[in-house]
Structures are given as C-alpha cells and as structure tokens.
C-alpha cells in the first residue's frame, strides 16, 4: 500500500501533493536521550511522565460511511456498497472492512458528531490540525498556517524535554502542522524516508551512507582539533556560538547514543511484529511511531495521503481499508500490551467527512457537516461513541461538536490548558483554543 508518497495521491485540486516542507526543524534542547531514559528509570513509573500523542492524519478527508458511521437504512445511493458489521460493543456498528477495529472497539472511542464549515483541504486541514479556522478564506490547494498546530503546541509545552526531537512528522509535515509564531524550534522533525525500505535510516541522525563509523569518530576528533574560534563564555555576552556547541553535543549524542539509535532502529523488531503492523509504509511508520513514543517523544504525526475519494471510492476502500484496519488495530493492541496506551493518546482523523450521495464517478465529495474521529488511550473510555449523525449521515445532529472541542480535548489529555493565551513575538495574545471546552465524555 504505497499510497502516501507516490503519484497515486492526486487530489481534487489537480495537483499531486508535494511535500510542503520536508524540513527537519525539530526541537531538541538540553542533553541526551540517555539522561531522559535515566530519569524515566528513576521515576520507576512510565505513567508518571507526561502523555504522548500519535496523530494519524488521513489526508484528503476520510469517508465516515465506509469507516465508523455506516448508514444501512439510508437509500442505496447514500449507503453505498458496504454492509455494517457489529463490534465488540453492543449496538455499535462499523463498516465491513474494519474487522480488526470492530473487535477492538472496546479499546477506543469514536466521535461521530464533529462538524465545521471548512469544506476544502487547505482550510479543513488547518481547522482540525490547529483547532482554529483559517483567518481568511483559503482554497483546496492552500498550505497555510495562521495558528500553531497541535504537535507544535505540545512540543512547545514540553520544551524542556531532553534528547530526541519533541515532534515528529512522517513522511512529511501536514499542511498546517507547523509552529506558526511559536518558531522553528517547534516545527516537526520530518522523516521522509520509508521505514518499510530495506535500508531505512532516519536522515541526518544516522551517519551518511558510505562513511564508516570509525572514520566518523576520527572526523569528530579532527573537528575538535581545528575548532579554534574563541568563545565568549560570559552568558550576558549572548555569544550564539555557545548554542551551536550545545547543538553539536546533542547531535553527537543522537548519532552515537545506542538508546537514540535504538529508537530509530526499526530493523530490531522481530519479523512477527513487523508483519503484524503490515509490511507497507504506513504500517511500518506506525511501528516507528510506537518506538518513538516509547522512547519519550511527545508527539508523532503519521501523515497518510490519498483519502480524497472523489471517484471510485468502493474499489479504493476495498483495497485500502483492510491493511489500514490491520495497522491501526495492531497499534492499539501493541500499545496496550506494552502498557503504553494509558499514557499515549491515539487520534485518527482527516479534514472532514464525505458527501452522502455517491457521485457520478462512484465517489464521494468533501463534506464538513459530518465526520468521524477515532480517539484511544490516555484515559479515553473505550467503547464510547460520542454524538450521532442523522439517519442518512448528512449531518451531525446529536451532541454537535466543533474542532475547538476536539482540540481542547486533545490538549486537556496532554496536560495542556486549552484556555490559555499564547503570545506572539510581537506580544499579541492569542487564545490557544477560542472555545476551550473539552468533550467531557472522553476525559475519563
């Protein structure tokens, strides 16, 4: 299922999604991972540390009908070709391709009643990624940022964490997944390479191919010898070279620390585990996300392109959903078995849902009046279904919620107060979430 980066992920706006910014701007401060791992060991309780988040972003806008909100009683031109199946939660039905998730339904919640008014990719992405609607009208092709993203705010909040970057995005940054005014330190560290590849390595964090470790060591030694620029040690002098020194130390730590390299080393997983996640890019990224979270990374975005099913939605879903279902259910199970689910929030969503009526091309178009969002872990009560759409899935009608409620829930679970003012470098106060009301049912 190599759908994330290749040419098949064409969107309604006619362009192939270019990687917006494969920038590797991360947020590393302080000393190495080792120290952090030590801290964890000392605390003796993984629950004592702050929670992490894995955000599975289904770019394009996943259909709610063929996933978490089937409408078997709607007319045929609306209900589509799939049948509902029962889940482990009595009375809750998913669409037929979600076999694994149906079994695991007791472990996660589904919100069926988020609706908003931003029906194009650029704006919908911004609204769901940041909890704030775009300030000016933007279009499908837009890659905009008016507000810091969930991931950047989390990185900013965890600013003192040590070692690994605080916010990863794979294989690219989502359109509005950036830091906005929080600054480059809180941009995601992008890992564009495919962890399903035979010789996958995290770029820049591993030695360049062809450079032997021993030669890297001697180069490092040589660098120490030729580095003779005088530093101005007095802190009040504000010598920027001192910061660079710090970053080189951290960089060396990442490259040479066995623990850090271990987090990136997906090859150390058994074949069984790797198979269980699915031997495809998305599956292996999910596995890598689990490894990163395990190593203490607070926010990982898995960007999954190609959900803009304007045409041929049923063949596409037949092909795609089973693998996707396998990866997600494995991720939940694996996190749970490792005792990480209590401290890891898993989110699955896209920019909006899709139109009720199947169009001439056998697809569904953009529809922000209804969508389904999956949420698991970090105290989310399993088996919960929040809200409902109407009989035909046109619109959220029961317990109607907003992207602001969603973002507030995420922040609250991550220990971040959504009702706070952030300040731009110009000193302008910006409310983190304009309506800071979380979804109570999901707080647990």
């Amino acid at each position: 299922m190599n759908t994330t980066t290749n040419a098949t992920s064409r969107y309604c706006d006619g362009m192939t999604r270019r990687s917006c910014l494969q920038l590797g701007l991360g947020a590393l401060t302080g000393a190495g991972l080792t120290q952090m791992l030590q801290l964890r060991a000392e605390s003796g309780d993984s629950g004592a540390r702050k929670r992490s988040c894995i955000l599975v972003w289904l770019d394009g806008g996943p259909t709610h009908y063929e996933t978490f909100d089937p409408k078997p009683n709607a007319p045929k031109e609306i209900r589509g070709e799939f049948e509902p199946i029962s889940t482990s939660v009595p009375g809750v039905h998913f669409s037929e391709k979600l076999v694994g998730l149906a079994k695991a339904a007791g472990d996660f919640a589904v919100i069926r009643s988020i609706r908003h008014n931003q029906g194009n990719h650029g704006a919908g992405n911004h609204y769901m990624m940041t909890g704030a609607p775009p300030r000016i009208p933007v279009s499908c092709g837009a890659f905009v940022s008016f507000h810091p993203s969930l991931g950047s705010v989390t990185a900013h909040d965890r600013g003192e964490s040590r070692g690994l970057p605080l916010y990863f995005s794979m294989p690219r940054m989502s359109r509005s997944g950036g830091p906005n005014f929080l600054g480059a330190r809180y941009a995601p560290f992008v890992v564009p390479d495919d962890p399903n590849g035979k010789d996958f390595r995290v770029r820049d964090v591993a030695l360049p191919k062809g450079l032997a470790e021993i030669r890297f060591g001697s180069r490092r030694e040589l660098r120490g010898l030729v580095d003779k620029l005088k530093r101005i040690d007095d802190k009040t002098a504000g010598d920027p070279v001192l910061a660079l020194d710090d970053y080189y130390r951290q960089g060396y730590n990442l490259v040479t620390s066995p623990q850090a390299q271990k987090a990136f080393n997906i090859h150390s997983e058994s074949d069984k585990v790797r198979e269980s996640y699915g031997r495809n890019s998305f599956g292996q990224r999910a596995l890598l996300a689990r490894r990163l979270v395990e190593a203490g990374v607070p926010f990982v975005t898995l960007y999954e392109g190609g959900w803009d099913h304007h045409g041929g939605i049923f063949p596409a879903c037949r092909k795609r959903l089973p693998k996707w279902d396998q990866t997600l259910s494995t991720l939940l199970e694996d996190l749970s078995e490792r005792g990480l689910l209590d401290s890891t929030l898993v989110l699955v969503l896209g920019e909006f849902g899709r139109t009720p009526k199947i169009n001439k091309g056998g697809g569904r178009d953009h529809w922000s009046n209804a969508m389904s969002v999956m949420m698991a872990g970090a105290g989310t009560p399993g088996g919960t279904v929040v809200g409902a759409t109407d009989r035909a899935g046109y619109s959220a009608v029961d317990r109607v919620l907003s992207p602001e409620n969603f973002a507030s829930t995420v922040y609250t679970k991550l220990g971040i107060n959504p009702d706070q003012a952030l300040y731009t470098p110009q000193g302008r106060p910006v409310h983190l979430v304009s309506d800071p009301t979380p979804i109570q049912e999901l707080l647990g």
Partner: protein
Amino acid sequence: MAAAVEQAILVSAAAVAYTHDAEAAQAPRSYIPTMRRSLLTSALLLATVGVVPAGAAEAAVPIDFERDILPIFTRFGCNSGSCHGKQAGQNGFKLSLLAFDAEFDFDALTKEGRGRRIFVVDPERSLLLSKPSGRNPHGGGRRIEPGGPEYQRLLGWIRAGMPRRTPDAASLVKITVKPEQEILALKGTRQIEVTAHYSDGTKRNVTRYAQFQSNEAGIAAVSEDGIVQAQGICGEAAIMARYMGQIAVFRPTMPLPGDVPASVYDELPRKNFIDGLVWKKLQRLRITPSQGCSDEKYLRRVYIDIIGRVPTSEEARKFLNDPKPDRRERLVNGLLEQPEYAEHWANKWADLLRPNPYRVGIKAVLNYDAWVRRAFRKNMPYDQFVRELVAARGSTYRNGAVTLFRDRRDPGERTMIVSQLFLGIRLECAKCHHHPFEIWAQEDFYSFAAYFAKVSRKGTGLSPPISGSEEVFFSSPGTGTLKHPRTGATLAPRPLFGSAPKLDGETDPREALADWITSKDNPFFAKVMVNRVWADLMGRGLVEPVDDLRATNPPTNPELLAALAADFQKADFDIKSLVRRITASHVYALSSLPGPRNVQDTHHYSRHYRQRLRAEVMLDAISGITGISESFSGMPPDSRAKELWTTRIGSLFLDAFGRPDPNQDPPCERTPDTTVVQSLHLMNSANLYKKVTSDTGWAAELAGSKRKPEEIVEQLYLAIYSRTPDSQERVIGRGVFQKKGITRRQAAEDLMWALINTPEFVFKD
C-alpha cells in the same frame, strides 16, 4: 515636517514595547504583559504614593464613565486581549480592547446581558460587582477587592444612575512620567509616577491605574506598580507607561561602574561620523570598545555582507597579500561592482516582498522576482524602487512590480505592507481597533488605505493552486474614499502625519502617496531602510524589530540613526553608498572578542556581534568550497541558492537553515536561530557528504594534484576560514595526511568536512 514633527509623533505615540530580541525569543513568556497585580501591593502603593481618587475624595466630584470607570477595566485586565477585550469577548461579555471604544463599552454594560450586568434596584447584586469581586463565580477570578476603592467607585456610578458623561467632565489630554530620564546604579530601583493632565487644567496621579512595560526587561524590568528595577547589566531601557490610550516613556541608563578617562574615547579612531556617534554613546555608558579586527576577519565579513558568499582561496590570498593601505576600501568598491551584489541584496528583499507562487501565480511571482533583481543590478535609488512599487500599474505579465497589488488585494492589506516595509510603522492593529500601544486609530488606518481605493484590476484574480492568469492594475479616475468600518464615516486619503500633495482627481492618488513616503521630509522612510541595512551588517538593528519605529521602542543610538538617515538622503538614497559608509567605519571593523569593559554590551556596537550565515549564503559557500554546485529543480545548472526565484523550490538544506516559509502568515519570517537539525544536517546529510566526497569535487582535485599536504591544508583554510593556518594548525593538518590507513583523498575530505562543521565557518565573526 522636520525633526520636530517626528519628535511630536514619537513622543505622543503610545506603545507597549514588546521586544522581540534574542532574549525574548528564548523566553517569550517573560514578555507577557501581566495584568494581575496583587491587591495587597496596590493597597500599599495607594498608601505610600498617595493616589488621589479614592472613596471620600471622589464623592464631591461626579463620577464620569470615561474618566473614572473605564480605567478600572484596563487596570484589572478586564478588557485585555486575552479576556473580555478579545474579538469574541469572554463568556458572552465583550468590552472594547483596552477601552478604545467608550460607546461600545457603555452599551455592553448598560444595555446588554438583559440588565443583569447592572441591577439598578439592588446595585450590589450587579454582576459587574459580584463577579470581579469574587462573590459570584468568575472565570477570571477575583479582580477587585470587595468594598475597596474600585468597588466603591463602580457602586457609586451605578447608584448615580450610570451617567454616560457628566456635564463639564474634563477630558484627558496627556500623561507625563516622573522622572523622564535618570542614571541608575547597576542594580538601582526607581518608582515611576504617572500624572494625567486634563482639559480643565487639573491633574491626577494615575500611577495605580497605569500599565508599565520595559522594552529591555533583561536590562531594566518594571513591576506592575511602576517600580523600575535595573538588572545588573549595563545599558539602557525604555519603560513605557500607558494610561487610557496615552503613553509616556522613562529612560533609565545604567552605566558600567568605574571611571574611564575621557582621553580613552578621544584617542579612538574616527573614520567617519559613525565612529564618533558610537564612541559618544559608549562614553555615556562607560563602555570601551574592542580592538580592531584582523584583515582576515574584515575580508570575510565584507564578502558575506556585500555579495553573500565567502571568498575563494585565490581571492583571499590576493587581498591578504595586498600591502597598500587602502586595500579595504578597494576591496569593498570591487565587491559592490560584482553581479553577485545584486543577487544577494535582491534575495534579502525577496524575503520581504515575494509571495507564494502557488497562490499568486508562477508568472507573476517570477516577474516580480526578476523586477527586484533588475532594480539591484541597476542600483536603482531606493526612493525610486519604492515609488515604482507603491504606484505600480500595468500587467502582471509585463511589470513585475505590480505583483505587489496582485498579492495584497485590498486597500487594508496594501496599507499594512507599505507602512511596515517602507515606514517602519505597524498599522495592522489599527485595522480592527485602536492600536493598543500606539497613537494610530482606525481612522488613520482607513484614511491611509484610501490612497489605494482607486486601484482597479482587470483579468483573472487568484485561483490557487495555479493562479496563472494575467491581471492588469490601473487607477480609476477620482481621488478615492473608504468607509470607517465602525462609524461609517467617509474617509478621504490622508497621510499618517504631515501633509501630502493635493489630489486632483486625475492623477493616481498613489503618486501623491509615493511623494509623501519618499519625501526627504519624511524621516521614517530613510530611517527604516538604514536600520535594515545596519542590522544586516552589524548583527543588530539600532531599532529591533527593524521595522518597528516608535517612541516606546527607541533606537539604542538615536543620533546615529538620524545621522545615517540624513547621510542616506544626501546620497539620494543610494544603497551602495550606505553600505560603503558602514563598512568604512572603524566600528564595523571591530573584533567580536570583548575587551575589559564591554563583555555585556549587546546593543551599542562596542564589538562585532556574531551572526550565523544566512541559509543561502551558507549553501552557496559550501557549493563553492566543495566545487559541487547544488541542483535546484526548475533552475539552470550551477544556479546559486541566492538566485532562486521562490522558496518553493525544494531544498532540505535551506529549510533546515531557516529560509522563510511563504505558506505562513505572515509569510516573510526568516529564522536566524541555530537548531540541532542544522548541526545534524552539516554533520550527516547525504547531500553534503556527496559534495565533499565527489570524484569531481575540490577535495578530490586537491588530493589528485601534485600539491604537498601543507599546501592543501593552506588552500582549505583559505577557502573555508578565509585565513591561512597558524603553525599549530599546519601541524594538525599535516597529521591528517600522515595518518595510517587514510588515503590522501580521504585526508582532504576529512579536513574539509571538519572545517565546514566548526563555528568559524558557520558564523560571520
């Protein structure tokens, strides 16, 4: 409109000086204007300072809504931008931001909320009293003391029937602070007193109701009660006091302890007026400057600053072997004539002007970029450059400058970019409400915007992601007006201050606007540009942020800024002569290493401030050193990073090193920070590794030559550090080549890699 007018504007300008310097970036939260003050402290202050308005004293004078009630809301943060003052209000109760709209606030209190906010029959049960005093649950907690002076005053106002205006109520004319200037000890403190002056000649001490902000909290912080505390670092700060839209500034100076004989300053070199003005400032602060820098450092600085790359080994050797005393001057003159000068400076302006081509259109942006580059190639005088932009007309297919208007599509957007870029006046706040920290009102904003009201367009507008069509901009007849969004009043074009040429209804009003902007009587125009250039060359602007000129954000050396601006005007806005002037000063050529009396100086140019190389400069330097040019999509082979026409051309390197991202709003931010991603990229990126180890690269060429290891070492030092190695470094370098198991080629590569990975390469020192 000479200096006096400017002074008047600056002095009456109001602003919370939110600074934006390196410290602020590291700890943005410390710059939060705190609204909460401990009630206890306030009470103490009340007792010690003897504030007039309280209980009994007030009873005699009728309570006036604007004079007596509104200041309470500002004082306790009720109408702040993070509470009821924000766009959507808070919990259904909205006040105007910092009380800029008294009418609105009066209605919000007395007419909305179904009369619950004010409960006339039982005033003490009014939400206006019960919530902020903590008797009823209040999201903002307890803000005023039950029964305290503010409580009593609000109660008295309700009992008096909530008068909107009392007859003959005096209006606020201005505020003053005492003292205005003072020399403080390094850890000295000073209480500021704020006095309000009213139209009837009365005065009140309003210290308790004023808000305070320091532009340099690291140098002198100010408490919420107006107590200034110097932080133990020598320097200067501006402390702003704000009260009901009026501002006044206190400027404390904290010199370094100990005396420095005047002769020390008298004997410093003075190559041009810059030096004398900097020395004068240093003398006031009793700071002494660093030594002059070496020729090697000077060489590297001017190459980076003027043409945006480091010198090649040949260029370096040629200059360093030049024995003539005027070698620096000739070097600068030569660099200013190189084609790379235009590309480098156009690249800087691209940061400020160039939009996202996927939104504005590839052809329009390509033409815009080409127009900027052509202007710098021709060395177009800066006033003409600005005039051609501000009054641009024609097709986006023919006149690149007109893309400014395709990008900024309404008069409001045009007002913001034009005022900020070319005047250093930030008007964006005044678009929606009275500028909270400035004198600018919505009326000023829309009167200025009215200059753009007659700009018409024909053709296809924006249709992202392609937006490829042609659009033509022209001026319709008439002088143009805009409506005030709140009052509905019709506003004719009017400049922000001073006077502009009269409009005749035929000529494009933008011509008159351009006349006014670029006039030699308009001090802001030259100042913001010289400040930009100064900041680029010196590592810090005389004003920071560079395009934020206002009384509450004063220059660190006002005389120097004025002198540079005057000099730039005298040279008819010739940018090259400005660059020549700065690089010829002794101040530019100071060492970065501190002497005994200037290690703490980060503002007054007593030493050179180190800067990380810009993304494009560093990438071009690396391509030059390794001999392997970068391959950019959609650009001819061997293109340099500084020649890219859009930042949408992919480059992991340029992204890692903080080139601006046009998808952001605002789009022109470039980040000068260093990050670990940068060090990782230099250390490990596949791209850099390939460049260093390429068979056709410079390391391979050096290794394959007949040169002795010593010569290779020297070549590498010259190309990467712009200097020759000292004897110890020669030994180290030779050692690399003698190491067992390492080929000559590997030795050259390793040394190249090591040198590129050190701060001596990464920084302009």
